[in-house]
Structure formats: structure tokens, C-alpha cells
């Protein structure tokens, strides 16, 4: 279903070249439409009643048809009756809505194959907190001290999480329930990530439109709908921060670009709000708050600094920082930690830069020279300071705990697997950006280069790279297509008239290139669907295998164990297990656990590890000491499943 949807989508992107070349296409398509309708309505060709007693010849029918064509105009199929603006809008809406539907539906593999269930480990924690938020309200959520985890230490949930995700789904839940749409909170959580990826396609379209043009936007939207690098984190059931964070990130970028382009305080403030949403939902906001200053710095270095950028950045930085400090997990970090210093440094630099501009405008040249020399010293030190801070923050995203497989450097194969043709189209997009450099283009170039570096450092950050890959590839693909489509069309017209071509076999080259691009796009859709269905659509809580007779065997042992704990142990039982299963036990079994996936206390984990690794007598002592009632251990020796 998804595959055919993709193809349908792709074929509909092709006629979209129409809006790119409105002047060229207009007259031609009009003529073409008419030609079509003439063929369509031969019946309208009213002939006079031929009477037997006249010998006069009827006029030849050919001349009639031409005359009729004007009369027939009113009988055109309805989409062609509309004005070209409207047709353009309709086509855009059509392509975009198909992309949005596709991005939702392609993420439903696991729901269709298994059921509507939360996946993996962290999503279970998010699900549990969301459930708590909807049940208890925001204030008790904010002040929530969780005694179910990290026994006997407990965990302050309200202050140690990014609440954006939970607040989003709780809001959605309450809004739906206000309209008496009695949807289960679990289903809200399961389908939140696909929903937000639909929104991401729309945002991507707008962002690319701001950067380049409408057609690139549509291609980019179509691409991000299916890019595996993003799907890996946003399939239905993968209820994690990243699911909404990519949307927030792109929204912030879009509003930033708007702010930069217009220099309006309104867009700056909107950008700050989007940034606030981003901060509230993912720790990766640090990338964002370094990228925007970097953009401003690059603009300064290239001499593109202007009042617009001054207004935009000052608004975004000051408002954004104040807002981000409202998230209790972030707290005072934006003014204390080195990760945020680049933004502060650039903010200062902005003030100095515009002050110098002001002075230069007011003072005569000689006075300004004197002043500049004395000031240069101070400014120089400031710049080096900022530079040093930038160097320090270069390693921001890799400093986090490095013990998980998703924090390993990315291999080439996974680059190809997650991005496929985007890897090759990315430089093309860069080329098109450099062709006509604008303030906005510089941003996307910087974003692309930095994120490709970070993605190379850590697999997990492939997620940040995927959108920019789509945007740049969208620009690249649409650039190539629109260039060669033009040739294809021109050569046809010229065949009728006299040939005045600047190089031979123009038409043939164009058709080959276009066919190649279509082939690339088609293989891209197939690849994306295949990767999504094979690699990223397993809930990991339920496993399935093929039996000897081809029947489907479902291994549901995890839930069996959790459910037993839920209904057959005392309410206050303490369960010891390795930390992987912590979140799932608290969410599904609703029992107190010793360690969980929020690996904040290493000594506690090591103590549990010691108990697990010791001999029975020794382990018993440690467990008594830890006040453990139950121990959960995975044993797969009998069925050949890897166990603890």
C-alpha cells in the first residue's frame, strides 16, 4: 500500500515543474488543454441538418472543430477550468497532503503487524509519565517524586525530564476528550510520532520553500516523508522525545529563516517560542542554540550582517534563553554551561558589530580609525574568547554517556541504509545553494556540514542529519529536474520551427537525465519502504518468528513476566533486574524497581550488577541488603534467545 502510494506521489511531483516556469508553461498548457478537449468532445460538433433536396455542400468539418473549441471551453473538466493560480495551489495541496499521509502511513508497519503498542524501553517511561500527567494534572506531575524507581533513592521526575512530549500528548488527549472523542491515552502516545512526522513534512516544505523555491519544497517534503533515518525514531509506538523534537527543530529553523529574511520582531519572537518548545522536548536543543549563532557568525564573516539579522538574533537569543530557563531540567544552564556560551558570545558580538556600524555612520573617517584601533584590542580578545568557547562546545553532543550502542560512530553502510540516494544528492543541493548564495542558504549549508560531522561521530545523531539531507537533496533534485525539463520541452517546440540549439542532442540528454532521476527516486521509495518494514518496525517487546510450517510464532514472554508481576505480587514489592528492563517494569508491571534506563547512579547499578554476578549465597546477602523481593532475569538457554 505504502509503496504504491509512494510511486503515486512521485509521479505527481513531476508535473509540478509547471509552477516553476509559469511563463513558459502557461500558453503551452492552455493550447494543450484545448487540443485535448477537442478530441474529447467530438459530439459537440453540431452539424446543420443535412437535407436531401439541397445540393449545397456543407463546409468541411475541420473548420468546424476549430470554431467549436472556443464554444467548448465551458465544458472543460473542472480542474482545468480554474485559473492557473488555483490549479497551482491545488497541485501543491495535493502533493503535500499525499506526502503527509504517506509519512503517517509508512510508520504503521508495526501496528499492522503486531498491535498498537509502545515500543522499546524509553518510550515506556514516557508513556508512564504521560499517563501520570493526564491522570494527576500538571502540578503534581511537576512535583512528582517517583518512589517506584531507584529504590530506595527515588527519582525526581518533574525536574529530570523534558516535559514537552508528555505535555503535547496530554494536551492532545484532553482536547480530544473535550470533544468527546474517547481515545485511549496509549493510542495517543502510539500515534503521536507519526502525526508529528506528518507535520514535519509540512514544515520541511515551508522551510525549503523559504530557502529555495516551491518545487524544491515539495520534493523535500516528499523525501522527508519516507527517509529511514527519521523513520527509525518515529514509527508508531516509538514514543520518544525525538518523535516531536525533529518537528520542533525544523519549525524553529523555519521561523529563524523567516526572521532573518524579514528582520521582523514578530518572527523573532515566534522563533523563540518554537525554540522554547524544542527545549522542552529534547536535549538536542543544544545543537540548535549553537547552530543559529554559528549562522550569525558566518553572516558577519561574509559581510552580510545587517539590521535584520541584528533584530532577529537579539530577539531569538534573549527571549529564547529566558524561556528555555523555565524548563526545570534546563534551569540555569543557558547562562552557566559552556555549551551555551557560543550563543552568548555571538549575542555580545552582535551588539559590538552594530555599535561599530552605528559609529561608522556617525563619525568621520579619521576619528573612526582612531577609535577602531583602540577598540580592536578588546574586540579581538572577545572574539578569541568566543572562538575558544566554540571549540569547547564542538564536543557538546558526544560527551553524554557513551556506553550505549547508539552512541557509536556511524558506519558508511548505515549512512547508505538510512539515507540512500540522499547521500549523493546532498552535494548537488549544496552546489545549487552556492550558485545563488543568500542569507538563508548559508544557514542550510552550515546546518548540513555541522550535522554531517555530528552524525559521523554518533549513530544517534543521524536523526539530526536526515532532515537537512532531505532539504538539500530536494533542492538538488528539483534543480536538476527543472533544468532538464526545460530542455526537454524546448527541443520539442523547436523541432517544428527551425533548429537554433546551442548543443546537439539536447533533448536526448535531457530525457536520459530525467529518466535517471526518476529511476533514482523510485529506487529511493522502494529502499525506504524496505528499510522501514525490515529494520525499524519491530516493537522489540513482542518478537515474532516463522515456524517450521510457515506459521507465525509470537514470543510474548516479556509481557507475560511483567503482567504476572503486575497482578500476582504485593503492591509494594521491589523487583531487582538489570537496568534495561527498568522502565518496562515500572510501566507494565507497576512495581518498584532498583535501577532503570535513566542510568544516573552508577554505584547503584554496579551494586545490582554485583548481586547479579555473584554466587548465590553472596548475592542473597546483597539482595537482602537492597530489600529485594523479586528478581527478574531473562533466561533464553532453552529457546536459544540471548539472555542476561
Amino acid at each position, binding site marked *: 500500500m505504502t509503496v504504491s502510494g509512494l510511486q503515486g506521489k512521485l509521479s505527481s511531483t513531476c508535473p509540478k515543474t509547471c509552477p516553476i516556469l509559469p511563463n513558459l508553461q502557461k*500558453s503551452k498548457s*492552455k*493550447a494543450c488543454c484545448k487540443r485535448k478537449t477537442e478530441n474529447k468532445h467530438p459530439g459537440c460538433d*453540431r452539424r*446543420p*441538418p443535412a*437535407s436531401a*433536396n*439541397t*445540393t*449545397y*455542400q*456543407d*463546409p468541411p468539418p475541420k*473548420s468546424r472543430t*476549430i*470554431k467549436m*473549441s*472556443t*464554444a467548448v*471551453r*465551458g465544458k472543460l473538466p473542472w480542474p482545468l477550468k480554474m*485559473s492557473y493560480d488555483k490549479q497551482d495551489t491545488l497541485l501543491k495541496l495535493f502533493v503535500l497532503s499525499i506526502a503527509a499521509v504517506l509519512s503517517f502511513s509508512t510508520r504503521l508497519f508495526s501496528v499492522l503487524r*503486531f*498491535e*498498537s*503498542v509502545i515500543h522499546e524501553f524509553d518510550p515506556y517511561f514516557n508513556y508512564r509519565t504521560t499517563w501520570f500527567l493526564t491522570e494527576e494534572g500538571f502540578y503534581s506531575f511537576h512535583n512528582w517524586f517517583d518512589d517506584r524507581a531507584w529504590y530506595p533513592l527515588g527519582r525526581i521526575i518533574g525536574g529530570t525530564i523534558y516535559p514537552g512530549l508528555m505535555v503535547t500528548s496530554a494536551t492532545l488527549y484532553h482536547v480530544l476528550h473535550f470533544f*468527546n*472523542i*474517547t481515545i485511549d491515552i496509549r493510542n495517543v502516545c502510539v500515534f503521536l510520532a507519526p502525526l508529528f512526522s506528518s507535520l514535519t513534512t509540512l514544515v520541511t516544505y515551508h522551510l525549503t520553500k523559504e530557502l529555495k523555491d516551491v518545487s524544491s519544497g515539495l520534493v523535500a517534503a516528499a523525501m522527508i516523508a519516507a527517509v529511514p533515518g527519521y523513520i527509525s525514531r518515529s514509527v508508531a509506538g516509538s514514543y520518544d522525545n525525538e518523535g516531536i523534537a525533529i518537528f520542533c527543530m525544523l519549525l524553529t529553523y523555519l521561523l529563524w529563516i523567516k526572521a532573518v529574511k524579514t528582520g521582523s520582531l514578530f518572527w523573532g519572537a515566534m522563533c523563540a517560542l518554537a525554540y522554547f518548545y524544542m527545549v522542552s522536548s529534547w536535549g538536542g536543543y543544544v545543537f540548535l542554540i549553537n547552530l543559529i549563532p554559528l549562522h550569525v557568525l558566518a553572516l558577519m564573516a561574509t559581510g552580510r550582517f545587517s539590521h535584520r539579522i541584528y533584530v532577529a538574533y537579539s530577539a531569538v537569543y534573549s527571549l529564547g534563553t529566558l524561556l528555555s530557563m523555565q524548563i526545570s531540567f534546563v534551569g540555569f544552564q543557558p547562562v552557566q554551561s559552556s555549551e551555551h556560551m557560543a550563543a552568548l558570545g555571538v549575542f555580545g558580538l552582535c551588539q559590538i558589530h552594530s555599535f561599530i556600524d552605528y559609529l561608522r555612520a556617525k563619525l568621520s573617517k579619521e576619528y573612526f580609525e582612531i577609535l577602531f584601533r583602540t577598540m580592536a584590542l578588546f574586540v579581538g580578545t572577545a572574539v578569541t574568547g568566543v572562538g575558544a568557547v566554540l571549540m569547547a562546545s564542538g564536543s557538546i553532543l558526544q560527551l553524554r554517556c557513551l556506553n550505549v550502542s547508539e552512541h557509536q560512530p556511524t558506519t558508511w553502510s548505515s549512512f547508505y541504509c538510512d539515507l540512500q540516494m540522499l547521500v549523493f544528492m546532498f552535494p548537488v543541493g549544496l552546489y545549487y545553494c552556492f550558485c545563488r548564495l543568500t542569507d538563508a542558504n548559508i544557514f542550510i549549508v552550515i546546518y548540513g556540514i555541522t550535522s554531517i560531522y555530528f552524525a559521523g561521530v554518533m549513530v544517534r545523531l543521524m536523526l539530526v542529519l536526515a532532515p537537512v539531507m532531505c532539504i538539500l537533496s530536494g533542492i538538488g533534485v528539483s534543480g536538476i529536474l527543472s533544468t532538464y525539463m526545460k530542455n526537454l520541452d524546448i527541443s520539442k517546440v523547436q523541432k517544428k520551427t527551425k533548429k537554433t540549439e546551442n548543443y546537439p542532442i539536447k533533448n536526448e540528454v535531457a530525457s536520459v537525465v530525467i529518466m535517471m532521476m526518476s529511476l533514482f527516486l523510485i529506487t529511493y521509495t522502494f529502499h525506504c519502504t524496505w528499510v522501514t518494514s525490515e529494520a525499524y518496525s519491530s516493537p522489540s517487546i*513482542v518478537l515474532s518468528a516463522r515456524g517450521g510450517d510457515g506459521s507465525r510464532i*509470537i514470543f*510474548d514472554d516479556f*509481557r*507475560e513476566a*511483567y*503482567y*504476572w508481576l*503486575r*497482578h*500476582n505480587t504485593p503492591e509494594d514489592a521491589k523487583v531487582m533486574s538489570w537496568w534495561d528492563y527498568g522502565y518496562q517494569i515500572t510501566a*507494565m508491571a507497576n512495581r518498584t524497581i532498583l535501577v532503570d534506563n535513566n542510568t544516573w547512579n552508577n554505584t547503584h547499578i554496579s551494586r545490582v550488577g554485583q548481586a547479579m554476578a555473584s554466587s548465590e549465597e553472596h548475592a542473597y546477602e546483597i539482595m537482602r541488603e537492597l530489600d529485594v523481593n523479586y528478581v527478574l532475569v531473562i533466561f533464553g538457554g*532453552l529457546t536459544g534467545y540471548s539472555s542476561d
Partner: protein
Amino acid sequence: MNRVGYELVIFGALLASCCTANQGALGGDLVNTAVNRQIDLTSQLAKFTTTITLENAGKTATTSFVLAIDPSLRDRLSFIGATTKDDDAEKLPVTQTTVPGRTTDILFRVDLPKALGAGQSTTVNVEESYTHAQTPFPAQITQAEDQLVLFKGNLHFYSPYKTQSETTTVKLASSKVESHTKTKAKVEDSSIVYGPFENVEPFSQEKLQVHYENNTPFLAVSSLVRVIEVSHWGNIAVEETYDVRHSGARLKGSFSRYDYQRQLDGRSSVKSFKTILPAAARDVYYRDEIGNISTSNLNEQDDAVELELRPRFPLFGGWKTHYYIGYNLPSYEYLYNSGDEYALQMRFVDHVYDDQVIDDITVKIILPEGSKNVDLSVPFPVDRHPDELHFTYLDTFGRPVVVAHKSNLVEQHIQDFTLRYSFQKLLLLQEPLLVVFAFYILFFTVIVYVRLDFAISKDEASESRMRMQGLLDQLQAAQDKRTSLYQRYEDAIAKFKSTKDLAGFTGSRKKIDAEHKELSSTIKELQGKLKLESTDVAEKVGELQKLDTNLKEQIGLSITLAEKVVAGKMGKQQYVDNEKVYSAKREDIMGKTETLLSTL
């Protein structure tokens, strides 16, 4: 329906307090001449089937007799029913009663179908079901052990009348009996026969105790919530939430999955059970709080849908689980109506598993929004709670919910309830209209937003463009009409040529001329307006007018030619040649007009 006063089933615990009104005497001098008791202990239930031969030893006729419930089992009684020996289907009314002097006993009065005269005798079958009457002993067993249970009862038929002769047969689940009461006992394979006992006094008690192996599943539904949602669009959705526990001997020590899979131990555990759903059940689901329970099988049969449920884990003694199943039913099988009056007839409780024990059930019936005059009738007494309101998709003022509760149920309680209510058919349209209205509002807002200009400042350029577009559209329409007029000219000429009717031709020509004039003036007007927007376009329209004048001239020539040829002033060949030239010219002008129009 009509069985309310007809067949009554009463529960001791529930109604002991509220039935004081039914006071009566013990019913004269009745004597149980022969009593044959069957105590069926093959499942977790204790099912008593007693055949009583009653004789009226007194002087007056009696219409009823009294049954007494054994004090040792009085809290366990779930169901009691009586039939006459001849007709199994005709159930005798059984009502709880009290008798002065025997306040501690639970007594039921059974009304006989016809009065029992002095000296006459009759035979009655009495059926009783007791739940949780067998207690596991020992109370804890390991996985490998078998479950032994203890049943304590009365050796004699507990009756307010004298019993002349009685025998009791105890049927056991297995032939393995640890111990039993030895009085007049005879063990036959897996059953024990007691008696016959002669001349037993009224209300006599003697201990009966059997200790034996019973590995049948001691599965009990601790609580069941049955939600029936009625939709007048043709669907009835049923969802049942279960809390299930194994009420047998508790598991001692640990559970070994390995042994369980490899060997045949854990015999008293519950691995799976069968629930029978109505034959029309569709979209069956079996889930719990953490998702779908993947271990279930559905067999569709002719008369029922058999659902083989396997809990996530095997249930051992003391283990609990919680799940819910749901399905949809077509409403035409259960919902009856006449005009605005509706009656829903469905089972109060449905089959859960064979020999089921349901400790508590709450039935909630969600009726469509706007239902009134709700009247619930159940064949056995239930607690009716105050009605609630339920809000779901597209509801505005909520759906009424009828809530009824009952404790201690067994298989015999699988009976229909009838719920009558009135519902105006027109209300059925409320929800679709709501959707239509919502979409209407949405589209209206979009139209208002798109069509109206909310900008504070005016965008002169785009407004002028839009004005021009509008004018051009009008122009196009007028021009199209005008072009079609030429076709009519030609048609008229052709007609004229064939009919030679000059007057008719002049008439139609005049009419067309008038229309042409009008259209031309419209276009001229439009040209004037267009001039304000763009002189360029106006000039092109001027050209268009010129072309049209040309065309008009050409058609005029053609007409004179036709008149000539009709009047016979011109030869046919000459006419054809001339006409060819004219029509080629017209063709040429038309083509020019076409290209000119497309540049606009």
C-alpha cells in the same frame, strides 16, 4: 418479559433481609416419603439435584411447600430452582420466605402447579448450586502435587418435614478419595452412596465430609463488568472486563516453566479456557492493560463463536489476572421496536467458561443519546444503581447508562434481560447533522478567510490584477457567446437555403443581429473598464472588436450571396465557389481571434 412472576431464583445472602413480607407457615403436615439426592462434585461447584416425593398427610389441601437450605452451606447458595417431575421445562415459582420460630434458617416457598389434596402425593425436582463449597486441603500445594479438596455438608436432606426414606449419592471428580464419612457409605468407583436412611426427623443434621482429589480448574471471576453499548445504526458493542483468580490450593514454592512445559504437572492449573460468544459476534478482541494477548484462538461455529482464551501465564492457585474481551453484534438480533418504543433483549451474563463462578457482575447498558422512559426487567433480582451519563464520539448531552449489579452467579443465570425505552427516531439524525454543521463552519471560515481581505494596508497591484482577471473572464464569456452566434448565422443560412423561407430567415437573422449587437456593446463596456487597468489589454480588445466587425461583414456577404442564390439570381456553381472564398476568410478571422484571445 413474561417470566418475571413465573420463575424465580433467589439468593440467600442477598435477600434474607428484604423478604420478610413473604411470611408463611410450613404448609401443614407434609411428609417427604422418598428423597433422592445427587451431590455433583465433579467440578468446582457443588450441584445438588434432589428428587422429593411429597405426601400430604394432613387434612387440608396445600398449594405450596417449603424448602430449607442447609445451614453449613447457607452462604454459598447461588441458585435454586424447582420443577415438577413430569415437566422439566415448567419451572415452579420459588420465593424466599420466613417462618416464625425458624428465623436462622433460609427457607424458600415453592408453589405447586395444583393444590395437593389430603393424602395425595407429588414428586418435585429441586436444583441447587453452591459456589466455593469445596475448600482445598491442604491449602498449599507444589507444582507437581495434585489438588485435594474437602467438601462438608449434611448427610441428611435438611427439610422442615419428616423424611421417611432418603439416599444421597456424591459424585466426585476422581476416584481418589482420601477420607469420607463412613456412615452407611458405599464407595463405587468415583461416587459414594449414603443411605438409605429411614424416618429422618425434620431439620436433622449430621456431618458429611469428603476429602478427595479434584483437579478441575477452580477458576473464579472475582469481578466482571459487562458494558453493552447500543447504537441505532445497527451495532451493539459488548465489552467485558474480567478479574479472574484461581481459587484452588495456593502454589507452594516456585513455578518452573521448564517442568511445566516438559511434564504433565501443574494439573490443577488453568492453562486456557473456552468462552462461548453469540454466533453473530464480530471483531472479537482479547486484551489487557499492556496490549493484545496474543495467545487466543477463535473458532466460528454454526451456533456460536468459540473463543479459546489463554491468559498470559498459566494460573496457579492464588494467581490472578485481568483482561477484557469485546465484540460487536448486529442490533437486529437483539433490538426490537415498534414506533419509538424499543426493547433490548440480551443476556444479563454470558458464558465465560463451563461451570463458571462469577462473584460479582456489573452490567452497564449504554443507550443512545436521548433515550427516555427506561425500564429494566431481569428474571432474577438485581441491584439497580442510579443511572449514569456516558460521553463518547459526537455526544452533546450524554448517553444514559443503566447500571445493574449482582453477586454470586453460575451458569443457570445465563438468562435474558429486557430493557424497554423510548427513543425518537429523528434524534438519529442529530449526530450526522452535527458533523455536517461542523464541516460547514470549517469551510465557511476558510471561504471567509480566503475571500475577504483582512489586511490593514491595501495591495494595489494584486487588487488590480484580480479585477482584471474578473473582467477578462467576463470578456471571455461574452466572446465565446458571440462566436457561437456565427454558428447560428450559418445554421440559419443553411436552413434558409433548404426551406427557402425568406420571412423566417429575416426574422431569425434579426434576432441574431440583436444579440450580436448586445454582446458587442457588452464587450465594448468591458474594454472601457479594462482600459483603467491596463491600456495594453484594452488595445487588444479593440483589435478583437475590429476582427469581429470583419467577421460580421463576411457573414453579411455570405447572407447576400445566399439570398441571391435562393432568389435564383446566381448559379449554384458560382455560389459554391464564392461561398468557399468567404468561408476561408471567416476561417482565417476566427483563427486570428483565437490567437488574440489566448494572449489575453
